[in-house]
């Protein structure tokens, strides 16, 4: 909503004077000096030929002169153009809350300064528009939104000082939460209430925000930055397998995202202690590339791998860290009973690099094997899978197939129990030889997993698991081992190891196959739950009494708060990189803080969207002041008046200005 108000509206009564040129024109036309002349034939002849051309000139002159008067009157009335129904001249106390975006994207450099610096300048300018006695507050939008004052205060100088000292974070922020907190600041204020959001309005951060404000709150958005900002970001680093065994080869998979409308090539560097590797990645426009590094875990020692790309205009997301924790043995948790569980434990117990224990599903286990599963503990198993763990399940006869399908993120056609069936004659197996589980068996040295006869099985229908890969199947096509995709990895085991159901467990291939299943059947990606983003608190349990220190990547010692149980917690971590836990100089572990990938996409909300939200201004000197107080239009009026004056002169010079009126004989 736009409006105009006047500093001296009394002068508007002079507006009828704008009709003066017209009146003068009419009066002057009626009373020209009268001259007797011998013959007016030639005068008429000349004037009539020109009147058609000259009349527009006269009209133009009339218009210009009328406009000149109008501009002169309005000039003295001093009109002010205002938006959004804001009338700066209105009296009363003002309350202003500035929701200032301090998230990572505000660190993008534009025109020699960061978006955050521009936002702070705008905020300072905004504060300067307040009168003495007005109240204001600043709410920093970041991982943990924080206000300068508990409620809007009158000390504006302190706010300015805080603006001068403010630094952009590398944190992500919850815009909705920030908006809610900012409105809460204004809730109990009296007088005029204004909420000004100063941000780059990053689409990934603000796109889903619901802009709902009370009626008495004026909402203004002040946008900083350009929408065309492009960025190249490292958004992920994963290992396959997630926890390699010492001496095992593994793959480090990086992900390079291109947030621009042009394909870009970039060298990706991996620094793994003594080993440095680099790969050229070609990321398509608005796409991503996944350069893979093949590495070998030399020993059990933990290491923090650093992934990096050359520096660009937005450096925080150019580095990423990942902790590599090779293990000397894999941990398998076997839950359930029956011959299959016993044979699993026996087989895995023969392998030196694998520790199999019979226990309830263990969060720390590399593989959770559930034998003869009747559907109990399904939520816990689902949670394990969600966190990226590997689960091997042997369904029990009579289990509802829908329960199994739900765990596998499949939708079964209908509820039906899995029946056990006898096979006569015994049935053999068919294996998917291209699967990595069978690489070991290519030479035949470790037997043939396809060998063996089965006389009993569950009637499992592959149609109920359309997304699953049938790694082993019976010769009639019924699945014997299914690999289901998902955040973790779910194996569905339909190979009964009971002696009455077959002889497969007695075959030489059985133990090597179980080893390969544990080793290569693990999920490719580790859970990222252990990774932190800036603003989060690091916590770790130690033996009580240890003098544990936590150092930031820059070497600063961070304060820790402990509990009686020996769990230590830090404050919000503000630096990206490897935070080191140590006791007497000995490293106990790391906490890695990686850039929140949601902040890498620097695209902004379109202006049209912001305009729909409320009053919107583009960042620039005095933009907020203009919005809040309106724009003094007298310089424009003066310019227009001078222009009209100049135009009048031009028209006067260029035209010959006759007006002809024949008034009859």
């Amino acid at each position: 909503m736009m409006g105009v108000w006047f500093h001296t509206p009394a002068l508007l009564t002079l507006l009828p004077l704008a009709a003066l040129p017209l009146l003068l024109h009419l009066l002057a036309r009626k009373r020209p000096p009268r001259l007797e002349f011998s013959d007016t034939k030639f005068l008429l002849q000349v004037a009539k030929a020109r009147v058609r051309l000259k009349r527009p000139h006269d009209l133009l002159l009339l218009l210009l002169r009328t406009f000149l008067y109008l501009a002169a009157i309005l000039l003295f009335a001093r009109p002010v153009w205002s938006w959004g129904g804001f009338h700066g001249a209105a009296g009363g106390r003002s309350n202003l809350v500035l929701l200032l975006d301090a998230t990572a994207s505000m660190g993008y450099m534009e025109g020699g300064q960061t978006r955050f610096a521009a936002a702070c300048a705008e905020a300072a300018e905004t504060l300067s528009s307040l009168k003495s006695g007005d109240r204001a507050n600043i709410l920093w939008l970041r991982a943990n939104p924080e206000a300068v004052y508990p409620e809007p205060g009158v000390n504006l100088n302190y706010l300015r000082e805080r603006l001068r000292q403010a630094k952009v974070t590398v944190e992500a922020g919850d815009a909705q939460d920030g908006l809610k907190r900012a409105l809460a600041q204004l809730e109990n204020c009296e007088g005029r209430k204004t909420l000004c959001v100063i941000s780059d309005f990053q689409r990934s951060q603000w796109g889903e925000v619901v802009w709902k404000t009370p009626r008495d709150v004026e909402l203004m958005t002040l946008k900083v930055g350009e929408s065309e900002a492009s960025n190249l970001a490292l958004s992920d680093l994963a290992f396959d397998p997630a926890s390699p065994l010492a001496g095992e080869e593994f793959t480090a998979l990086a992900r390079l995202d291109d947030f621009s409308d042009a394909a870009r090539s970039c060298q990706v560097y991996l620094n793994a202690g003594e080993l440095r590797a680099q790969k050229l990645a070609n990321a398509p426009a608005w796409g991503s590339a996944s350069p893979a590094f093949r590495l070998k875990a030399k020993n059990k020692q933990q290491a923090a791998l650093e992934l990096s790309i050359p520096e660009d205009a937005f450096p925080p997301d150019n580095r990423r860290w990942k902790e590599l924790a090779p293990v000397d043995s894999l941990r398998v948790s076997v839950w359930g009973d029956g011959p299959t569980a016993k044979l699993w434990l026996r087989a895995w117990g023969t392998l030196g690099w694998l520790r199999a224990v019979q226990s309830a599903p263990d969060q720390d286990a590399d593989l959770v094997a559930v034998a003869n599963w009747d559907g109990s503990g399904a939520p816990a198993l689902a949670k394990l899978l969600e966190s990226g763990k590997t689960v091997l399940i042997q369904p029990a006869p009579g289990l509802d197939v829908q329960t199994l399908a739900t765990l596998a993120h499949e939708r079964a056609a209908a509820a039906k129990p899995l029946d056990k069936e006898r096979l006569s004659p015994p049935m053999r197996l068919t294996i998917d030889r291209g699967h990595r589980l069978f690489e070991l068996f290519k030479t035949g040295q470790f037997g043939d997993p396809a060998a063996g006869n089965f006389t009993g099985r569950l009637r499992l229908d592959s149609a109920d698991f359309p997304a699953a890969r049938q790694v082993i199947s019976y010769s009639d096509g019924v699945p014997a081992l299914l690999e289901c995709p998902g955040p973790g990895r779910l194996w569905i085991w339909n190979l009964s190891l009971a002696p009455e159901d077959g002889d497969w467990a007695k075959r030489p291939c059985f133990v090597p196959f179980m080893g390969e299943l544990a080793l290569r059947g693990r999920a490719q990606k580790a859970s990222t739950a252990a990774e932190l983003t800036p603003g989060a608190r690091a916590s770790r349990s130690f033996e009580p009494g240890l003098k544990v220190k936590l150092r930031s990547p820059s070497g600063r010692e961070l304060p820790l708060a402990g509990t009686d149980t020996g769990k230590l917690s830090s404050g919000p971590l503000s630096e990206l990189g490897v935070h080191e836990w140590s006791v007497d100089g000995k490293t106990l572990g790391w906490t890695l803080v990686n850039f929140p990938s949601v902040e890498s996409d620097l695209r902004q909300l379109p202006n049209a969207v912001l305009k729909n939200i409320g009053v919107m201004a583009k960042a620039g000197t005095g933009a907020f002041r203009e919005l809040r107080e309106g724009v003094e239009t007298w310089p424009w009026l003066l310019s227009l008046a001078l222009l009209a004056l100049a135009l009048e002169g031009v028209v006067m010079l260029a035209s010959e200005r006759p007006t002809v009126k024949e008034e009859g004989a």
Partner: protein
Amino acid sequence: MSQGRHKFLRPEDIRKLSGFEFAPRHIVEGYLAGRHLSRARGLSTEFRDYRQYAPGDDPAALDWKVFARTDRHYVRSYEQETNTACYLFLDSSASMGYRGKLDYASFFAAAICYLVARRGDLVSLHLFDATVRKHFPPGSTHAHLDNLLNALERNRPGGQTNLSEALRRSLPLLKRRGSMVVVSDFFDDPAAIFDALGPYLHRGFKVHLFHILSPEELELPGEGLAEYVDLESSRRVVVHAESVRKPYQAALQAHIDGLRRLAARRGVDYSLARTDTHYFQLFDHLVK
């Protein structure tokens, strides 16, 4: 010769005119012996040329000395001198009342009347506007001159200009050819004027046109927006004087050029007379 004081022929004017003589350069036909060459060749002392004798010629006219030298019969011919008639047409329309144009023209007309009558030639005066308002047949006596001068004094501007109509109506009034002097501001269609002059020229009249204009008419008076009232039609025109001045002057000049061009084509003398110059200068076209 006029004895009384006349407005348009003052004693000082008469003195100045004593050095002038009306002498239009063309042959006239007259019935009294005068100073102008007559179309009729015959009894005179002024030799003109020889021509071969033809049957019917007076044998007394034979030049015997030439016959003696050449053995051929030649007859001597002589120029006959006669008196001439001057017809004066004076525009008396309302437009001539502008800035003393009629007075100027009347002074000029009075001087011509005096010069013509002084030589014993005949002078005739036609006062006209849209038609012939007053007509004085040719005469050369003092009384006639007095009548003309009195008529000029009594003459007042009025009516609309229609020179062509006036000329057409005057044609039957002119019995013998002679000089025709038209004094007017010629606010009429040039083509119509020369159409009306056609019969006169055909009859052998020597026509002189004196175009009387005041400097104001040539320049266009007034400043800024002005209302011009036509003296003849009372038509009013409101124009911005400065802005139409040049186009007006151009239009008037085109009119003058048109008159001059047509006059040259038809063998008519044309003179533009500005009222800010002395009318004696106009005699260059008429006197010797």
